[in-house]
């Protein structure tokens, strides 16, 4: 008995990564659990919802604290299985069944990638302890293959293009399930890569591949989000974009930044899902685009203020040309965008106000990243990479897409060019949920 118990502890490795993620899950699950007491009152499956939610939280605890390859894989499978069960809340509703099935297929594919990767790692290192594998990484082409498989697993789990469809088709789930999904399991990819981060430090090519897939997804997800006309699909497409950004950060070797993004996005998105009943009341305000160039340039100056403050507070060293520049770039863009409405407004105190706004933004942004980075610092999983051409292209794409939406307004009176109409229709179709998950006959909906 005693030897067995002492062996059990070797299956686990609890570090700050486990603790951070588990705190996130507990916080969100507590909120959702309390929320659902009222939200699901009278629902015939409220009890099974709670049973599964509890199961999910426990399996996530196993997942983030597992040190044994098999245990991690098992927790991975179990939590994903429970998620598909939670998605199938209204069991007689065919569209919900299809959503759950679609997610299930995707997770099975991910599990296959994961199992293969783990098998290779076990074969290479001869140990099933993750910490042991990470401490003495074997460098061979097989390690590269294992890393590639881990990346593919992360891509299926975090709904990166082309594995995104399960997420954008997952909205037949009850609102609280969407909330826990977007704050929880969809982030699995980020966790997995952060857990195995040391393996990737020597895999520049795979990191670049991951980065490219991430940025592409970030772009597509955001574009689709901006095109969606219903609140929940908009949130789902937005998550897809955010996941792309998160994995792109992993691709930059900035794993702690990715975990920071994971946590803050999780809380943000869980809140937005729970608040989705207010969508009709949120009025879009006129943002007066395109802005005057002088206003925009002025805003850019405040963007620089925000970026500098961000870099200072978050402790990002930018003397060296490495991928940490990628943390500063969004701060610059956000600072510009944030102060722009203030500067466009002809108020009296716009300059001090804009300055104040830039300071607040830079400080909040810097503090939240710094907080997570310092928590995760002991893990030593931050390994910025040297900048390369791909990074340059991606930076241009991030900036160009933002400026495009800001400055380019097709003049509808002149008519739209055909290529633009074609692009719109193609993107409209690409953002649609999987056909089987649409309730095409009203009466096939079952509560």
């Amino acid at each position, binding site marked *: 008995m005693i030897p067995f118990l002492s062996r059990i502890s070797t299956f686990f490795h609890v570090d700050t990564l486990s603790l951070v993620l588990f705190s996130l899950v507990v916080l*969100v699950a507590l*909120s959702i659990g309390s*929320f*659902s*007491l009222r*939200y*699901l*009152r*009278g*629902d*015939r499956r409220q009890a099974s919802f709670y049973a599964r939610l509890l199961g999910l939280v426990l399996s996530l605890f196993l997942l983030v604290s597992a040190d044994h390859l098999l245990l991690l894989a098992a927790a991975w499978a179990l939590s994903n299985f429970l998620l598909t069960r939670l998605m199938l809340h209204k069991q007689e*509703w065919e*569209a919900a069944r299809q*959503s759950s099935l679609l997610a299930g297929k995707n997770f099975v594919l991910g599990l296959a990638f994961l199992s293969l990767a783990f098998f290779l790692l076990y074969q290479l290192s001869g140990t099933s302890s993750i910490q042991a594998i990470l401490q003495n990484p074997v460098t061979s082409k097989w390690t590269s293959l294992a890393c590639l498989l881990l990346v593919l697993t992360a891509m299926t789990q975090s709904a990166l293009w082309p594995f995104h469809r399960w997420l954008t088709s997952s*909205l*037949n*789930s*009850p609102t609280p399930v969407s909330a826990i999904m977007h704050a929880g399991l969809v982030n699995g990819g980020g966790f997995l890569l952060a857990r195995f981060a040391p393996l990737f430090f020597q895999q520049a090519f795979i990191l670049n591949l991951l980065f490219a897939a991430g940025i592409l997804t970030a772009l597509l997800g*955001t*574009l689709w989000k901006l095109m969606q*006309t*219903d*609140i929940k*699909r*908009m949130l789902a497409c*937005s998550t897809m974009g*955010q996941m792309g950004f998160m994995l792109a950060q992993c691709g930059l070797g900035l794993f702690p930044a990715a975990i920071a993004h994971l946590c*803050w*996005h999780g*809380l*943000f998105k*869980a*809140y937005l899902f729970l608040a*989705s*009943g*207010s*969508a*009709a009341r949120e009025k879009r305000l006129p*943002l007066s685009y395109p802005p005057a160039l002088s206003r925009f340039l002025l805003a850019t100056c405040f963007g620089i203020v925000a970026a500098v403050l961000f870099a200072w507070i978050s402790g990002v060293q930018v003397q060296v040309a490495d991928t940490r520049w990628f943390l500063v770039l*969004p701060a610059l863009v*956000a600072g510009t*965008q944030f102060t*722009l*409405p203030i500067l466009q407004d002809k108020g009296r105190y716009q300059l001090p106000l804009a300055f104040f*706004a830039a300071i607040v933004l830079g400080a*909040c942004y810097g503090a939240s990243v710094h907080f997570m980075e310092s928590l995760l610092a002991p893990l030593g999983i931050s390994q910025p990479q040297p900048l390369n051409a791909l990074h340059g292209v991606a930076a241009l794409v991030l900036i160009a897409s*933002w400026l495009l*939406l800001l400055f380019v307004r097709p003049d*509808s009176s002149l008519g739209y060019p055909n290529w633009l*109409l074609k692009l719109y229709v*193609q993107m409209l*179709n690409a953002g649609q949920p999987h056909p089987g*998950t649409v*309730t*095409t*006959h009203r*009466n096939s*909906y*079952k*509560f």
Partner: protein
Amino acid sequence: MTTITEAPLITPKETTAPQYNRQSIDLAISGSWSRIAPFWPLKNLIAVNPLAGFEHLPFHEALVQGTAYFQQQDMPAGMQLVNRESIKWLQAFFDQGQASISMPLRTRGLLKSTLQLFRFDQRLHKNDPDKIRFLENLSHTPRAVIAESLFYLGISEADQETFLTLVLTTLPGWAAHVQYRTSWADAADEQDPHPVTKAQYLAFRLVLTCLLWPGAADLLRWHRNKSAQQSEPAILPSIIQNERNYQQQLVKQVQAVQAPVSKSQPAAQLVFCIDVRSEPFRRALETQGHYETYGFAGFFGLPVTIQNPVTDQSYASCPVLLKPASTVQELPGASVEASRKAYKNLQGFKKLYQSLKYNFTTPFSLVEIMGWASGAWMGIRTLFPKTASTLQTGIQQAIAPAYPLQPVLDSIPLPQQVAFGAGALKMMGLTQDFAPLVIFCGHGSATENNAYATALDCGACGGRHGAPNARILAAILNSENVRKELEQQDLFIPADTLFLAGEHITTTDEVLLFPDSVPPALAAPLQTLQQDLEKARKLNSLWRSREMGLPATLQNAAALTELRAKDWAEVRPEWGLAGNAAFIVAPRWLTKDINLAGRSFLHSYEWEKDRDGAALTTILTAPMVVAQWINAQYFFSTLDNTAFGAGSKVTKNITGKIGSMQGNASDLMHGLPLQSVYRSDSSPYHSLQRLTVLVHAPKTNIERIIQAQEILQRLFCNAWVHLLCYDPTDQQFYQLSQDLIFTPYKY
């Protein structure tokens, strides 16, 4: 070489109908749309009978038709395909501000814009050259497109109307939205920059059908089969039983009531909306002191548009059956300039957030900036809803304080003001024996994170709060000029009578009073009244809390209902008008001592003062019809919450800011959500019964009115509404039969 002489395959030219009968197409179009009831957008949900298009039929036949058209459990796969693509394009076209990148070309109207975009939609034509040619060769007017499509699908002229009807009823929610947009749109939606017509919508659906399901003529066969299988609805006997039980009890209770002998002056008179939620509150208040209450439509007879100079928003605050006659500004108690500035500041904060959220690249930073705050706010709102609400209003008040509003009457000419005032007082039967305090009490609800919030507001005010109308009527009747004019009409209002406006918050039972300047003599009675309103609130909250299944006591009941109003997770903040069963047209003394359990619309009426029947005619043709709409909405949402209701709130998904879908995508779910009419997934709260109207007036008066009013004949003849008469001349109860004859009421 016989192949040459053979009839060629269909060429594009021949897919267009060579000639078509314009008149018959137009008749088919209007005939098909006559089956479709409108559905209002979430911003002001108005209760409506989803089978309003079948009210020309007897109730039981309408049920059969409703089943055939709307409640089928299966649907041909081809039509489902058409629906899927329809939903995609309709969502994009009718979006009112969810998307940042909107559908292009929308300003050209539904048909033109979609026809141009369909050419790029490979999911529709799959690059099939024939289909692309079909699209290119379509005519440009909706009517012609309809004719060509019907020809292409092989629909004979005799079947046209039925086929078009099916094109609408197979996606009923969106059809109902288009019916709203084309026949019932309010001033804002009438000017929607993205136009649609009934014919355009049909043409849009038909083109999709031609592309995706050329064999759609099968739809007719499917419908005929389904119609043939229909029999008398099994639910009917239990509905009739519900009604009979309810009526028996009502008649018994009313019969036992004795007419009051003498009358003394009350401390105050309060006029509430006819809404069923007023009845238990009135009863609770009447037990607190000598208060006289009245029931009257909550817009107080004022067909007005309310305009807010601070937000620049305006809306019609009257029943949707009426067109507003005047526009009234409501000014804040502080300077308009300052209020506008504060409002702009508040908007400015929201802009900061929106500018980060709805762009490329910036959302990635936004989540990292706001993440911790969102998490904390989520926790507070969930675990401490009241604290969250206090914080929220505190911040809002700090940035843009909400000031008490005052209507500006200048926009209504004096004679019109006099007409409004006299009309309202006469209709509510309050023309003499005025108390020193007369309160006009509108109503509205208070809920959080509730897509269906406006379904709980005042239907008589077009799905809005009723306070503005109450303020206007109070201001009119306090005006000395108006009172002088009223005296010419023998309507004497004592100089020491003060009219005040109030608002009954139905979720919490609070009554807010809006006094501007109260003479010292009235300060004490007003204070007493406010205390009594507070006591009534506790009493009614207790009753309502128990109705909601909460273990309430008199001490905690108000806190419980307040929690429901402030909790963002709450799906049943109040029961709204669920349970509604009767519309009683009588003086209050007749119902005062009866516990009507919040199931009755009460309209004050004294037959002795209405010799010509003008007031009764109005009551029966306006408020009663609205009550019937409400009754039918609750009835059908309870009967089949999938076909006629919106389904569970748990999986709803708001689209285009106008309505909700279920899950990923579905039909626009018109009707009430499950949680509005069901206690749980399986147990209904609302009882299935048609409206029972009880009128306290001589039956000959009522007969005369029915003979003159076609709408009443339709509703009574077809048994959509039951009419009972309590004839004061012989103290007997009569019931109206379906051939419109009063017979003595039989238990």
